[in-house]
């Protein structure tokens, strides 16, 4: 039964990758961080017109989710298929604030109850529901964006992690939560705007968020927040907490019998990931101008996971670039040949899992080709392919780049 060997080795390779990140992290990260900063803050704004820039801005909001996933999945080993829930909650909090500002009594004078959001009026609500009222305050909104998802994540996480629910079960339960929330939002349209979502958002404290200048500013805000997120991520990975997460993933029981409250640590990283997603969601609402249940559901949640996987679940940078590439790919393909898109993305998922389990970050084209050839020959994968992971990187640099271009440029 030769098959398990490659997978075992690949799992091993993944551990190597993350370990390297944890141990000799201080190395090139700072340079990489600079490059990323230049790319986001200088290169993109120079390269692109407002339209494309706004597009990138939108993609970067997904990158928040990927960052969270790297921490909680790549390191913590907790795969959540419900990140869309948190993305959505963050987005909805922001949307509620903007919607209230957009529906002042004057501009809603045609309604039978002026001063409340239009969709409430259509659903015969005569007054603003209680839980909407606080969202008139921007301060409260900002807090809610972080707190609401955090609380939900904690409520989900604590009981399950205490009972040592993990892996597959956790994934499936979070997935179910996603579908519940989606149904709920669609069903309670009087309070949530239903399937149309909360649309037609105009101003933030009187500042029109639809103008080109506003979009540029929002893009920069978003980029800076993202870089901040990367910073936080690294401060964790470089700390003992980072090593603890790896330890948790590899030997949970040992950690438990070392006197750590494993449940609380897992909850922390899950909550953190939730907050990342929520911030992304809020920025999405600001840049795209609406929020709808189509982000809360299962499909977007899984696509976010995939984006992270493509970039490399073990690398914060990888997650960001992966997200950008996947979404550029999506846009590009659905513009040129819509029919092909699903085939491409589907194939991409499979390829990533089968050939590059560490994503672009850990890509090892030489090994991949070797594996492929040998697999065609029906042989087993040679030790050589992953024998010396430390050597991988330098060797695989070029292929990684070119294959990245191949994924999108062609």
């Amino acid at each position, binding site marked *: 039964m030769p098959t398990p060997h490659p997978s075992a080795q690949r799992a091993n390779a993944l*551990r*190597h990758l*993350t*370990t390297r990140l*944890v*141990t000799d992290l201080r190395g090139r990260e700072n340079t990489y961080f600079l490059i990323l900063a230049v790319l986001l803050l200088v290169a993109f704004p120079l390269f692109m017109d407002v339209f494309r820039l706004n597009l990138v801005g939108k993609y970067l909001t997904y990158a928040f989710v990927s960052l969270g996933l790297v921490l909680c999945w790549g390191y913590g080993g907790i795969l959540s298929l419900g990140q869309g829930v948190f993305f959505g909650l963050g987005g909805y909090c922001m949307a509620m604030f903007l919607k209230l500002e957009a529906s002042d009594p004057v501009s809603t004078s045609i309604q039978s109850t002026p001063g409340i959001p239009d969709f409430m009026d259509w659903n015969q609500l005569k007054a603003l529901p209680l839980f909407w009222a606080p969202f008139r305050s921007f301060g409260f909104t900002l807090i809610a964006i972080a707190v609401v998802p955090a609380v939900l994540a904690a409520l989900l996480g604590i009981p399950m992690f205490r009972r040592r629910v993990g892996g597959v079960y956790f994934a499936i339960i979070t997935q179910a939560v996603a579908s519940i929330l989606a149904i709920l939002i669609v069903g309670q349209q009087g309070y949530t705007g239903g399937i149309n979502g909360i649309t037609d958002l105009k101003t933030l404290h009187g500042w029109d968020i639809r103008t080109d200048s506003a979009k540029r500013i929002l893009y920069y805000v978003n980029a800076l927040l993202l870089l901040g997120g990367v910073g936080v991520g690294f*401060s*964790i990975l470089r*700390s*003992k*907490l980072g*090593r*603890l997460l*790896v*330890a948790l993933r*590899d*030997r949970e*029981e*040992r*950690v*438990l*019998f*070392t*006197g*750590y*409250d*494993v449940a*609380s*640590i897992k909850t*922390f*990283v899950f909550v953190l990931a939730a907050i990342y997603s929520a911030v992304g969601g809020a920025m999405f609402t600001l840049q795209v101008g609406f929020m709808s249940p189509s982000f809360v559901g299962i499909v977007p949640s899984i696509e976010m996971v995939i984006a992270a996987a493509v970039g490399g679940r073990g690398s914060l940078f990888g997650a960001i670039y992966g997200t950008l590439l996947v979404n550029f790919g999506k846009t590009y393909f659905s513009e040129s040949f819509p029919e092909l898109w699903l085939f491409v993305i589907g194939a991409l998922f499979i390829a990533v899992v089968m050939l590059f389990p560490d994503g672009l970050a850990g890509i090892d084209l030489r090994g991949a080709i070797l594996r492929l050839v040998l697999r065609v020959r029906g042989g087993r994968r040679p030790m050589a392919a992953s024998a010396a992971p430390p050597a991988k990187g330098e060797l695989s640099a070029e292929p990684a780049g070119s294959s990245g271009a191949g994924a999108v440029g062609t």
Partner: protein
Amino acid sequence: MSAPILQTESLSVSFDGFKAVENLSITVDTDEVRAIIGPNGAGKTTLLDLISGRTAPTSGQVRFKGRELTGMREFQIVRAGIGRKFQTPSVYESLTVFENLEMSYPDPRSWWSAWRFRRSAEVVALIEQVADQVYLKDRLKDRAETLGHGQKQWLEIGALLIQRPELLLLDEPVAGMSVGDREMTAELLKNLSKGRAVVVVEHDMDFVKKIAHRVTVLHQGRLLAEGPMEGVQGDPRVIEVYLGH
């Protein structure tokens, strides 16, 4: 000998009717090395699980320094001062020996303290001292997966020592070790027992003879015999049980 550090009273647990441990009452004192022996399925490991909170007893109590342990969660029991080593060596292969030991450093051990953790001189000192104790001083920089089987066992013991436990629960510490390593491990355990108690589950009788002050023999979850090795060895029931298998 001083006051008992660990007491179990009529401890029982059953899995779907199968009684793994039944009405077991034992007492362990400080500075004592206690060996638990018995044929397979006698409930040795289950006993350790019950003490360390890995398994909840169906009935009975476990008292540690007079404090009731049943109902406490695993990490609380560890923090109370009980270290547990598993049958198969479990260390963090992807971390270095130093990091492995560091992981057990008994700071508050919350996510926050872990995030804020800094390597103080005193931490390093402690780690080096323990590393020396478990014969790994010169391997501190190496990744744990590069260690030999015996060394992994020692590393795990070392990780326990960092926690400054007052009671050590060791599940087959010398299983699969070379003769030389066994000698050194025996030596190690002798030193360990100073100021704390050690409970060892072991099959290797020579090893047990070397280290154990007293021996507890389990059979089918029940206490069969207890006392110094010599006495127990002569006990006909014990002989019957062992030869019977």
